[in-house]
């Protein structure tokens, strides 16, 4: 190929200087010059070559960095061809040259990979990681929350005592001591803390009609403690968040926001898995204690009753499985896993005392 006219900037002034440019293919150097400048040469191997549509820019040298601008389309083609056939082209450039279709494919593959690791690998790893979290962490986390909670809520100490007595009569398959607290509130709910505190609101107790329902509730909550659901949840949320922020730190805000919300929705599904486990293991606890399992489906009816005012939230947005679905699978379990139960008079008596607001005789 013959020499061509190009533009040269010497790195000292902004004056565009017209030069003749020629490539010495054999020695991998380029030679450029003009009557005013004389001739100079430089290795093409340590020059930075960037290609913009219809323009090739060669930068070389350090202080000052000099620039050569070539806009001859034929010559650019020739130079590019020379670079790629002689392996001078960087691997990065090769990846760029794959073209937009391959790039879209790469993008979709990465997204697929992320989805797979997010939905399958991550929950598994996170649950395994829970073993590494010492039990004392559960106690600390739960204990601190409990301290705050009782400061801002009114405990019904008489009922708390009765509930403790009620729980004494039951077996929970629990490796740790459980503590039961009744809090005065209209809220129709109960919850468990990782340190073994189980809190029941009077709103829910008032709706209950049978001690079996209370056994079902305590069994459910005790399972949350036994299975360390809180810490599992925390592990998964943190690892999910880490994965998302690691992968998307480079991406733009919109994708990041979408992914962040996806994480939120997915962790709800995850917690629903925990609720289901708590229901089913709670059922086991009822079985061990020979309590009528219908208490569990009745309990769900009470919850449904108590939360009637609420608009029914679609299942994928709700942390608990929708009540109807729960009733369905619990009834199924009762049918398939039939066992003999008997009326427990002691429990019945304490339950009635709780309901009547009087100490058991």
């Amino acid at each position, binding site marked *: 190929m013959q020499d061509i006219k190009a533009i040269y900037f010497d790195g*000292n002034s*902004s004056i565009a200087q017209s030069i003749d440019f020629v490539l010495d293919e054999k020695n991998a150097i380029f030679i450029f010059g003009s009557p005013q400048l004389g001739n100079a040469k430089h290795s093409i191997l340590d020059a930075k070559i960037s290609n*913009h549509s219809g323009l090739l820019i060669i*930068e070389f040298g350090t202080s000052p960095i000099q*620039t050569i601008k070539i806009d001859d389309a034929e010559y650019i083609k020739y130079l590019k061809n020379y670079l790629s056939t002689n392996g001078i082209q960087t691997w990065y450039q090769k990846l*760029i040259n794959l073209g937009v279709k391959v790039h879209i494919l790469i*993008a979709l593959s990465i997204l697929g990979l992320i989805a797979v690791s997010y939905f399958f690998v991550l929950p598994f790893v996170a649950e395994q990681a829970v073993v590494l979290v010492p039990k004392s962490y559960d106690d600390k986390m739960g204990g601190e929350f409990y301290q705050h909670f009782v400061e801002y809520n009114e405990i019904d100490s008489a009922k708390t005592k009765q509930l403790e007595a009620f729980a004494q009569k039951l077996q929970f398959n629990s490796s740790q001591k459980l503590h039961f607290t009744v809090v005065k509130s209209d809220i129709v709910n109960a919850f468990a803390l990782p340190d073994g505190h189980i809190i029941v609101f009077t709103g829910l107790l008032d709706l209950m009609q049978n001690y079996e329902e209370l056994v079902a509730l305590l069994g459910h909550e005790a399972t949350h403690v036994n299975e360390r659901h809180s810490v599992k949840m925390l592990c998964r949320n943190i690892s999910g968040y880490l994965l998302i922020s690691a992968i998307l730190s*480079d*991406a733009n805000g919109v994708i990041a926001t979408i992914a962040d919300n996806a994480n939120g929705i997915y962790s709800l599904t995850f917690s629903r898995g925990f609720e289901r486990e708590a229901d089913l293991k709670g059922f086991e606890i009822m079985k061990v204690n020979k309590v009528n399992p219908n208490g569990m489906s009745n309990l769900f009816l009470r919850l449904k009753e108590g939360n009637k005012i609420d608009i029914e939230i679609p299942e994928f947005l709700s942390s608990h499985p929708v009540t109807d679905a729960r009733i369905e699978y619990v009834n199924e379990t009762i049918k398939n896993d039939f066992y003999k139960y008997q009326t427990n008079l002691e429990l019945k008596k304490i339950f009635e005392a709780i309901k009547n607001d009087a100490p058991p005789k």
Partner: protein
Amino acid sequence: MEQTTTEQTVEEQKNYTLGFHGTGSELFGIIIVNWLLTVITLGFYYPWAKAKQLSYMFGATSLNNDRFAFHGTGKEMFKGFIKALIIFVVLYGILIVSVVFHMEILGFAIFYIGFLGLIPLAIHGTYKYRMSRTSWRGIRFGYRGERGQLFGVFIKGILLSILTIGIYGSWFAMNLRNYIFSNIKFGNIEFKSNARGSSYFVLVLKGYFLSFITLGIYSFWWMSEIFAFYVNNISMHKDDKEIRLKSTATGVGFLGLILGNLLIIVLTLGLGFAWTQVRTMNFIANNIELEGNIDLDTISQTEDEFTDATGEDVSDFLDLDITL
């Protein structure tokens, strides 16, 4: 006779054109290849990725048909990344140690003051690095601001903003902007920004109010006003000659840009990000006019090289979005 010659040189208007020549598919390729390499290397490729992307964006921008160039390298930014990492490890270390020794208040105080103090340092470092690594026709830009002075502007701004429940914020933002821009050099051309806090305050107040009563529709016109305010207050000087910047952006233009970008992002689930960036750059380049009489053939190299990218990386950590 003599007088006419002087008049002629002073009055002689030059032509300047800004342009952007990047395409969505090129930028998309860079973003995706970078993404792939970043994922494979568990994030370590990030500094190189950033250098490639900046290099593309600068290289695609032109003034009078000559391209800008970004010379920053992944290696420089990686070194900066390590230094930035150390700074943050130390800050978090102080916090953790203080919690362990039950001196939380002291620890949090140091932590937050440290964080706040880092912001001006990061801005300073970012401009110093970016400007020095940017060139046009081989002539480097430069930032000559003093760290201590910027720190002073920043501290004064924060304190007065707190005292005036945020009202001073407009003056603060403009003081910061003026300080930074007035310290930018392009070879022997000096930049100047002369944005007044009071005008900005009125602009913000008016925009906020009108956007509110028009249910947000006015916000596009508001954006075009703020854009114009920023741009029109920037000028460049060399000896007795100057170039003034002028915005030609309109509210309708912003409306088209933003709604279009939004549509692209939503319809492609974010993958069309590259195309929105190209649209935005095109919009900016097409909506800034330069008028004046500086001869662009007479710029000479004056600025030193500065290759420490720590500030750039601290800005990344802090999520400061620093644009030129």
